[in-house]
């Protein structure tokens, strides 16, 4: 039982990690990014190939890939982000979905459908605490998800840029009237979200195989976690991750492994219907920028 709880919580940390970036893009900016899973997939491949060719540890390459992603989105992809922010929700859903299809199949073309994984010194290492066992790689992701949550929470609360991001989220027009360059905020936040997602991808590599279609499930889970936790709420994402992680571990054990997805999709619909603001979201905020 304690084993179940521990693995559920660790899994929750992992889910929170892959959802933080989406919370910035979808929760804060309200850009429905269906290519989120493919962002993770691409960064996993990047980390994989740097490991394969240069023997650079994924934990180290993540620190290179993430800033690089940030810079790319701030510069080369900037017009694209602006265009995306100006589209309707429907347009966003299908533009990002199209991008997801393109990325997924580019990966299929270039790397084939093979399952690939790295074999680092620690990827099989397990830690035992009494009768509870867990893998080191999952613990690292869990701890980093706590660090990221805390850092991002304080960044959004205290820093000037964080305040402008929150102001833009609450009311774009008024934020603009207060002299905030909302377009810049959009591009910056999107790039930040993409960079955190890329970082998460690197962290996942020692745990999961990477293959072209791995992103879809991650994206679905990330959407569930973000909405469950509350749009725009960073601690909410962590809590949402824990709820989904524990649900998956417990229902996998008590019901059946194939039903765990069913359980969290049901939770998802229930949350949407009963409390669309999510667990930690401010009531009413979910309708900002919608319709």
């Amino acid at each position: 039982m304690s084993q179940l709880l521990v693995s559920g919580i660790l899994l929750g940390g992992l889910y929170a990690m892959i959802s933080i970036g989406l919370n910035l893009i979808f929760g804060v900016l309200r850009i429905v990014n269906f290519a989120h899973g493919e962002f993770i997939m691409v960064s996993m491949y990047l980390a994989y190939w740097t490991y394969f060719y240069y023997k650079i540890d994924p934990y180290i390459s993540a620190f290179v890939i993430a800033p690089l992603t940030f810079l790319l989105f701030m510069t080369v992809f900037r017009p694209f982000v602006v265009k995306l922010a100006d589209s309707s929700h429907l347009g966003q859903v299908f533009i990002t979905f199209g991008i997801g299809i393109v990325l997924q199949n580019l990966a299929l073309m270039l790397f084939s459908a093979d399952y690939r994984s790295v074999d680092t010194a620690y990827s099989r290492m397990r830690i035992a605490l009494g009768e509870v066992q867990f893998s080191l790689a999952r613990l690292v992701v869990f701890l980093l998800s706590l660090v990221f949550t805390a850092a991002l929470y304080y960044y959004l609360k205290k820093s000037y840029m964080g305040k402008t991001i929150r102001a833009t989220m609450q009311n774009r027009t008024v934020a603009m009237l207060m002299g905030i360059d909302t377009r810049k905020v959009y591009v910056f936040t999107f790039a930040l979200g993409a960079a955190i997602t890329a970082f998460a991808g690197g962290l996942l590599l020692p745990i999961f195989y990477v293959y072209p279609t791995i992103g879809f499930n991650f994206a679905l889970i990330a959407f569930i976690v973000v909405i469950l936790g509350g749009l725009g709420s960073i601690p909410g994402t962590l809590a949402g991750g824990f709820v989904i992680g524990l649900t998956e571990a417990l229902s996998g054990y008590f019901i059946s492994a194939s039903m765990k997805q069913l359980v969290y999709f049901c939770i998802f619909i229930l949350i949407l219907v009963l409390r669309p603001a999510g667990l930690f979201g401010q009531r009413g905020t979910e309708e900002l920028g919608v319709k």
Partner: protein
Amino acid sequence: MTKHRSLKHEFGPIRIVLLVLPALLALVIPNAFVRDIAILMMLWSAAASAWNLLGGFAGQLSIGHTAFFGIGAYTSTLLYINFSVSPWIGMIAGALMAALIGVILGSITFPLKGPFFSLSTLAFAEIVRIISISWSDLTRGSQGIVIKYTPGFGKFVFDSPVPYILIAWLFMIGVYGVAVYFNNSRLGFYLMAYRESEDAARALGINTVTVRLKAAAISAGLTAMLGTFYAQYILFIDPESVFIVDNSLQMVLLSLVGGIGTTIGPIIGGYIMVPLGQLLRSTFGDAVPGFHLVVYGLCMVLILMYLPGGIVSLLNRRPFGGIRLKRPDRRRDGHGSVGNA
């Protein structure tokens, strides 16, 4: 807002040609590949048009329609396999079943707005897919079901593609007819009024929930009938072919490419995207796996970014009554402050 358009416009000469041409070509050209493309094209054009009844006219952007498609396919097939009920009757049963589920789903999810509605329909479709895999006593799980090849009209299986072409064409024309009805009837006007402004529609005394439920039932029922047709044409169904999210996306994509919220748009979208996809797949599918979907995805992104009104907006410069794909001007885009919503 859409102006009232007469039936003369909906069945003008260009449209008649557009609607009749693919079936005519498929009947004239005795090439199996061409005929297969034509059948799939008319099938998906019809499915997109059925989706468009709810997604386009009411602006309720479901990405869970594959659930109705699969429910139609499974209902008729299971009735046929287990109780030898003719798929024609099974098709009606599937349509009623899907309409009922559509109404139940709608009454739960219609309060949700924008992307939240879309996500909830996606989750619903995934739930149905998982159930169809795990309830293997009923559905044979991911193994799928093979429908025996025994030609006969009552069995909805034919030994020549000609009847399939005709039936697919009749389906397409039928769904187009329903779309024309939507575009010119009170129900359709109510839906469009809701799409443009929920508050204004309610202020005018429209029961926005009831009209959307009607649209959901019709849209789901028609989609389910096409699911039955698909099952009877391919003669094999499994969760990965009829419940997969790609089907929902296909329906939305065709509507978007052609022109969402218009009568002819989804059909034109099908005419362009389905042959494109099939040709790319048959040309590059084996040599370079994935390449055809890269091109397909790129076309999708480019059309959505640079031609948000769809192909129809090119053909007809006048406002076509479609959904506005661009956000309203930023400067006038006043959102309520937190807590007021």
